[in-house]
């Protein structure tokens, strides 16, 4: 089946989002500790859109996506609440066998480190064709042909000769291209890209990102792009979800969020990037460190570091609400609502300045 045919026969109704994540909770339990990795995450992804999941290391963005694909490290990692509905079916409740069929075929993932994400003892051909042959009945020859086709699609020169190579004979950028080829081999409806360019040189980063964008646009694949790099997100995504300590703290169109960051964390993030556009603003680092996620979260997770902190922030955790109250909440697409989880969001002037312009503890 081609992607188009699969889209046509999908169980999701027209206009319904492709992926619906509701109140996802993920914990890691070892014999003496519990890590509260993801604490009730809700977001949607519609067909064809590219959504960014932004946050620093440890905020739960990777864990969220491993949970979507049911790839959490057993036995410690567990989904302890919520639902992940893909194409009308809840992946959380699905038996392993059925999830396995969806993996690779409908939902694919590429990982951060291309050095370690490819099996060092198998050839490129073997690793490419095994995806194909796991999900479809194909002959060895046609799988090989498809592999060559995929390699040239991702821009690897002389693909026929590279099939019998091993991963260590490729450069980092080329390895990531191979990963992309493997992921898109069966034309999945959703691609989850977990920090795909973090381990690559800056010059290669742009190439790989462009490749992802072009290919997914052509195939109509939805993309969840996970990264800590706001620069990556700016050029690639239509919408962003900002994550902190296992919560989504701000969500909306990329342009909206960049123009009017409404969560203190987002404000801090934007102000800790040096800008090339000439402005002489000083870099303002976010003071403090991420919270200890071995303790059950109480109140707003960002409160200890927040300059807009109110008293209630220590004990109550705000939920995502529209920035411009009153509008109907739209979760996906070009009209997505800009939402923020904050009792005391920075004003636009404060957002531009990067710090509060009023008494601490007071509301605007």
């Amino acid at each position, binding site marked *: 089946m081609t992607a188009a045919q699969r889209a046509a026969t999908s169980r999701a109704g027209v206009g319904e989002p492709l992926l619906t994540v509701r109140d996802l909770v993920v914990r890691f339990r070892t014999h003496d500790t519990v890590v509260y990795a993801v604490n009730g995450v809700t977001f949607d992804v519609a067909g064809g859109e590219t959504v960014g999941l932004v946050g620093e290391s440890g905020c739960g963005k990777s864990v969220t996506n491993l949970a979507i694909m049911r790839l959490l490290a057993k036995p410690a990692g567990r989904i302890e609440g919520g639902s992940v509905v893909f194409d009308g079916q809840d992946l959380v409740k699905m038996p392993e066998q059925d999830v396995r069929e969806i993996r690779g075929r409908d939902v694919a993932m590429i990982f951060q480190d291309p050095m370690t994400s490819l099996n060092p003892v198998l050839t490129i051909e073997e690793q490419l064709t095994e995806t194909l042959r796991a999900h479809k009945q194909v002959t060895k020859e046609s799988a090989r042909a498809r592999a060559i086709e995929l390699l040239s699609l991702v821009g690897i020169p002389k693909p026929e000769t590279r099939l019998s190579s091993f991963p260590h004979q490729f450069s980092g950028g080329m390895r990531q291209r191979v990963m992309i080829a493997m992921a898109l081999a069966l034309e999945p409806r959703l691609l989850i890209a977990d920090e795909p360019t973090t381990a690559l040189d800056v010059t290669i980063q742009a190439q790989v990102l462009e490749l992802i964008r072009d290919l997914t646009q052509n195939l109509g694949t939805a993309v969840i792009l996970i990264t800590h790099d706001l620069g990556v997100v700016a050029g690639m995504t239509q919408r962003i979800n900002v994550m902190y300590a296992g919560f989504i703290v701000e969500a909306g169109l990329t342009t909206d969020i960049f123009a009017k960051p409404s969560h203190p964390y987002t404000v801090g993030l934007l102000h800790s990037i040096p800008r090339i556009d000439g402005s002489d603003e000083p870099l303002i680092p976010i003071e403090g460190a991420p919270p200890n996620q071995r303790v059950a979260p109480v109140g707003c997770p960002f*409160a200890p570091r927040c*300059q807009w902190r109110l008293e209630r922030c220590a004990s109550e955790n705000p939920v995502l609400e529209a920035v411009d109250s009153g509008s109907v909440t739209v979760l996906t697409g070009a009209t997505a609502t800009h939402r923020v989880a904050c009792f005391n969001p920075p004003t636009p002037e404060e957002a531009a300045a990067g710090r509060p312009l009023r008494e601490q503890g007071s509301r605007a």
Partner: protein
Amino acid sequence: MTTSPTPMILVEERASRGLWGDAFVRLRRNKPAIVGVVCIILFVVVALFAPVLAPFDPNKTGLGPSFAPPSREHLAGLDKLGRDELSRVIYGARISLFVGIISVTIGLTIGGILGALAGGAGGKTDTIVMRFVDVMLAVPGILLAIGIVAWLGQGLPQIMLAVAITNAPIFARILRGSLLGLREAEFVTVSRSMGADGRRLLLRHMLPNALTALIVAATLALATAIIDVAGLGFLGLGPPDPSIAEWGTMLTDSTEALRRAPWLIFAPGIAIVISAIGFNLLGDGLRESLDPRLKR
């Protein structure tokens, strides 16, 4: 900024007690390691307090008929010459402990010197020394020990030296490895002009690493030493003086009576196994708990 943010309430980490403190905590939880420590304590206590614990003089012959079975008086029976087997096993612990510790110490010294030479000097010295170590490793363990004892004659000092030489290469490799790493880092330090601070940092990281690896290796080497010494004794290369109660030699003396007096095999056999288990369990537990990777 008008005021500074409140102190980090949520950021609390269990205070790390340093490498050793953490390791000790983890070790306590490791049940097999605890069993190992118990075995070791048993072994050491028996060895140290042998004169007090042994019911009879281990060399007194003719306490009863040869190969007498275990009785209430002689819990492990009597050996070929009518000596109390239990007392001999108890005194044998002294020999094993003594020989074990000394051979591992000598091995550590020899291996340490070789490793320090190789890792410290690098280059040609490294190659030569490591080739020499390779030669030592080319001969399978016991054969090397047998060769040395055959060369030097039989007896406890020779056994100690032989076992020491057998386990020296491992220590040499460990020390060389960390010293080489140190050299490379030092070179990087110089070229990056990190200054004295950097070097001290490396010393604080690299040498403790080598130290922990050596301690684990030494513990495990003690287990091997106990077994190897008994093995050499079993082959008849032990102390020629029949009055010295060495476990391996006791086993050889008893093989002819396997049918009649199997307890003469079991008594020293169990003693060897318990002592070796002790050090193996502890060494394994140490290795796991000193490993900074908390992955598992």
